[in-house]
């Protein structure tokens, strides 16, 4: 199956570490050292307590599908999803390398990395059958 072309993300000074880690096939999120809460997408300031003591944390890359939809009008249908990570936060992503019709809410998924049009790797998820 032909894959969808992935528009490259544009990192900024707040996120260069995240995207460098993605190129090493690691999914990072942020945890606040003041209130202890994890969040996503990652910010310099905690969106819960506004502390600036936020630290990068590597995700297990495991999660479950919170919701999804399939774009049928695209040249290659693709799955947009919110995946709830084992660490807590729910993140926007794609479910890839599977039949879109096989995707269900609640299914376990694991992170994979796909190459965008700049060469930057982007974290996505696939059904975890292990």
């Amino acid at each position, binding site marked *: 199956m032909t894959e*969808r072309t*992935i*528009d*490259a*993300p*544009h*990192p*900024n000074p*707040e*996120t260069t570490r995240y*995207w460098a880690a993605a190129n090493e096939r690691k999914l990072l*999120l942020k945890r606040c050292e003041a209130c202890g*809460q*994890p*969040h*996503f*997408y990652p*910010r310099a300031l*905690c*969106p*819960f307590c506004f502390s600036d003591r936020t630290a990068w944390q590597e995700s297990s890359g495991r999660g479950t599908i*919170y*919701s*999804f*939809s*399939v*774009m*049928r*009008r*695209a040249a290659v249908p*693709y799955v*947009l*999803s*919110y995946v709830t990570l084992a660490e*807590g*936060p*729910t*993140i*926007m*992503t*794609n479910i890839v390398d599977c039949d879109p019709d096989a995707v269900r*809410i*609640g299914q376990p998924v694991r992170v994979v990395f796909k190459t*965008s049009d700049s060469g930057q790797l*982007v974290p*996505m998820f696939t059904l975890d059958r292990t």
Partner: protein
Amino acid sequence: MSRTSKAYIVGAFEHPTRKADDKSLAQLHAEVAKGALEDAGLTKDDVDGYFCAGDVAGWDARGAGPFSIIDYMGLSLRYLDTTESWGSAYVVHVAHAMEAIAAGKCTVALITLAGRPRAEGMATGTVAAAESLTAAETQFEHPHAPTVALLYGMCAMRHMHQYGTTSEQLAWIKVAASHHAQHNPHAMLRDVVTVEEVLASPMIADPLHRLDCCVISDGGGALVVAAPEIAKSLKRPLVRVIGTGYAPKHQRGGRIDLTYSGAVWSGPAAFAEAGVTPTDVKYASIYDSFTITVLMTLEDLGFCAKGDGGKFVSDGNLISGVGKLPFNTDGGGLCNNHPSNRGGMTKVIEAVRQLRGEAHPKVQVPNCDLALAHGTGGALGSRHGSATLILERE
């Protein structure tokens, strides 16, 4: 509870066009402004406050922005509000106009909306929007191609999973809108459709079919809000703004819950200010970008319990003359009009028609003295603003 006379909607006009190949964006704004002022029995010279959002001609003119359209229309103002909250903006503008009038900042407020996405061939819901260069979330979302239809599809999928809502139930919303649109000569889609026809239409973004999605149309609309002494000097029925509420909702740092909208906050605020409850409402204009938008909004506004929206909308309950809550009697965004991809303006206009008794006779709600208009701007599945108005005929 505040039920004092602060401001009245005295003028309302919906542009009859649905495809504006032969008109410019500025022209559309001016034509709807003229239409609403004539409807009110006022002139351009009476306007001292103007309210517009990002659809306005000249929004992208560096150093000019809204001044561009003010210049084009030749307005002389002492008050300007450019609150941009996308499709909900014009509902918010009515609230802000009421507040500005009550504060003595202006006496006649003009609100305009216009757009020509159809003439421009825009694929509104099925192609991801242009990438923002500054929005913090873009780099984490844009690579995943989150089109508008997908973001609403995810809400519908979760609602089905959590509450057992069905595609048949969602289809009833479109069926009701189509029953109303058959009487609107300007509506883009005037054919009455059945639940089966909605389900048989092509899948766009699971579980949303083509007929679960609103139209893409050109045109626009305008409203005139005036101070009580001016409203009472005009020859139009008195439509008073008695309750307003506005609230944004977002992803909460990853604590995402797709089962509700910002209407859980905007609705109670508006009802409290008006001193009424959902059961008092005779007619409701509910933003209908997609069928799921209506279902979730009805729950969030308190017309039924959370999770019961599917049952509430079924069996024609939203059809005027048939069900308990007549909605979108112009055909709504699903069948009539969704100018500039922003539905808030037409929601207020049809509520005004109902309160005046000027809706089409086939859909006019008898003795319609209390109406609600609700707008949603942005995307239900990521970030949006919800705005609620409660209007009373005096």
